[in-house]
């Protein structure tokens, strides 16, 4: 891992043991750093707009992903049904990890298992690599049939943490799904099981009907909604989890501006992630970071950690 030379942004954040230059990350699966370098050249590496890079989710076996069509645009949003295409653990370690290790920021690798044993294998193998700063446990992808189970049940979450917590001392970030009746018990189970941080939200389960056939448009029948359409929901869930746990949170869901990012911080998040907005503008995260600095200053909200801390105190008092 090559870290950028220290240069104060005034936005530094300590997050789950990682020292980050600012609080803006990417949502897993919304940025392929290798494809971006093929498209934009070295600038996509040197000017990477994220303070840490979160990989696309890795599974144990290679996956081709869902049959197309995989996308549907909604009012102010996007339904995707991608199906976790990836090279599998071995392919990732051999081909992608060496390239991702060349990024100038800490690397967070997202993993998803279809059983506790698979999660264990993935966590152990990925965490053993010195290039990896932290892991994100994807327990919430609504696109893959059995992938949503762990993140929707408190007991499953507790069992997962029992399985993986002892395998590494590296930070474990649990990515929560919004597709539950109450997200808080799952978040608490993650905290009690030794998670270092939480990230939310993953996409909201969604579908679209083909105007021509009247059948589901997406090849896999349904997918997950992201973009500004989900922002208010994401904000509410972030505040709810922030009130019920002490864990640091990466808040995400439709963030387009610094103002949106500050909203998430004032709902208790320590970091934010940009996802769908990067599709519209590859440089969106850099703009969000700039605007966040301006917003914090204009509102006298202090540094990001100060703003988060104030928000968490308020939420815990309420």
């Amino acid at each position: 891992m090559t870290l950028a030379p220290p240069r104060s942004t005034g936005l530094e954040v300590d997050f789950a043991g990682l020292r980050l230059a600012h609080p803006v990350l990417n949502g897993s699966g919304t940025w392929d750093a290798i494809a971006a370098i093929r498209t934009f050249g070295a600038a996509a590496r040197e000017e990477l707009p994220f303070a840490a890079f979160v990989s696309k989710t890795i599974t144990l076996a290679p996956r081709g992903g869902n049959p197309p069509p995989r996308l549907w645009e909604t009012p102010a949003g996007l339904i995707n049904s991608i199906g976790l295409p990836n090279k599998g653990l071995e392919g990732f370690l051999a081909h992608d990890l060496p390239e991702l290790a060349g990024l100038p920021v800490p690397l967070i690798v997202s993993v998803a298992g279809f059983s506790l044993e698979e999660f264990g294998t993935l966590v152990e193998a990925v965490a053993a690599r010195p290039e990896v700063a932290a892991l994100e446990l994807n327990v919430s992808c609504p696109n893959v049939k059995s992938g949503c189970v762990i993140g929707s049940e408190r007991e499953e979450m507790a069992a997962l943490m029992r399985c993986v917590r002892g395998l590494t001392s590296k930070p474990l970030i649990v990515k929560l799904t919004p597709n539950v009746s109450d997200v808080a018990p799952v978040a608490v189970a993650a905290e009690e099981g030794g998670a270092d941080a939480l990230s939310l939200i993953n996409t909201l389960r969604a579908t679209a009907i083909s105007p021509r056939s009247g059948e589901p448009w997406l090849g896999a029948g349904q997918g997950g909604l992201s973009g500004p359409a989900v922002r208010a929901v994401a904000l509410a869930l972030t505040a709810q989890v922030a009130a019920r746990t002490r864990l640091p949170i990466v808040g995400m869901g439709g963030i387009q501006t610094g103002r949106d990012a500050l909203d998430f911080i004032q709902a208790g998040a320590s970091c934010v992630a940009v996802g769908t907005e990067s599709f519209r503008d590859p440089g969106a995260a850099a703009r969000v970071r700039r605007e966040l600095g301006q917003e914090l200053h204009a509102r006298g909200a202090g540094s990001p950690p100060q703003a988060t801390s104030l928000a968490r105190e308020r939420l815990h008092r309420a």
Partner: protein
Amino acid sequence: MSVELEPGLSAPEQGPRTLAPFGRRLCRVVANERIGPYDLVAVEDESGPAPLAGQFYMLAAARAWGGDGGRPHLGRAFSVCRARDGRLEFLLEAIGPGTERLGHMAPGDDAWLVGPLGIGFRDPAPGGRALLVGGGIGVAPLVIWADALQARGMPALTLLGFRSAPYAEAARLFEGETAVATDDGSTGRQGLVTDLLEERLAPGDEVFACGPPPMLEAVRRICAARAVPGQLALEAGMACGFGACFGCVVRTRHGYRRLCVDGPVVAAADLEEGWE
């Protein structure tokens, strides 16, 4: 050419590419010319690099993008139709909220642009003839390709298919000789552009095609039957254009490939029946 990868993953670079500046940039619309039912929108992009034929851009109007009803939200992908002296031209057909909004842009308006993206057409083998086969709005990338081949003195023949005479006005974008077929026979030959292809295809030719999927499948079959190489510029719904969303995949012999980074130009031999 050996490609051995798991499905859905990046193949080794399959064609030429001009890198895009990182991020999106605001460009001034300088012309919008009506060509039959199409709009030929020109933007000034003096700071951007010259694209290769077959590459594309993500476009969005700077204002009133995502107005009534919250759509369009994402940018829209368009092959570049012509690129000269820092000016890019895109051929648009209004088929939804994005293309309608872009088609209504007027000189003086601003557009967001990301690109050039994807890989372009590879040169035909030395001494061979390029057969350009376009259908409808799919003629767009063949205009810049015909210009590039002509500028380098490479022999080319252009075959175009349209629904009817108004659509066939787009044939005038080509400077060289073209043969035109229309579905209703209102101009040119009545029939399909692939009928023209069957007749004109000769040994040593290489086919470059863009058009609706059934047309491209017919072109693929003809290329396979006549053992002629073909390069097809494909289209798919895209959210990002730079490999981030994994949404624009097409099924190839090597598994799913993202058209935005491993295309949009794909070797006909890499596709199998049923790809479309």
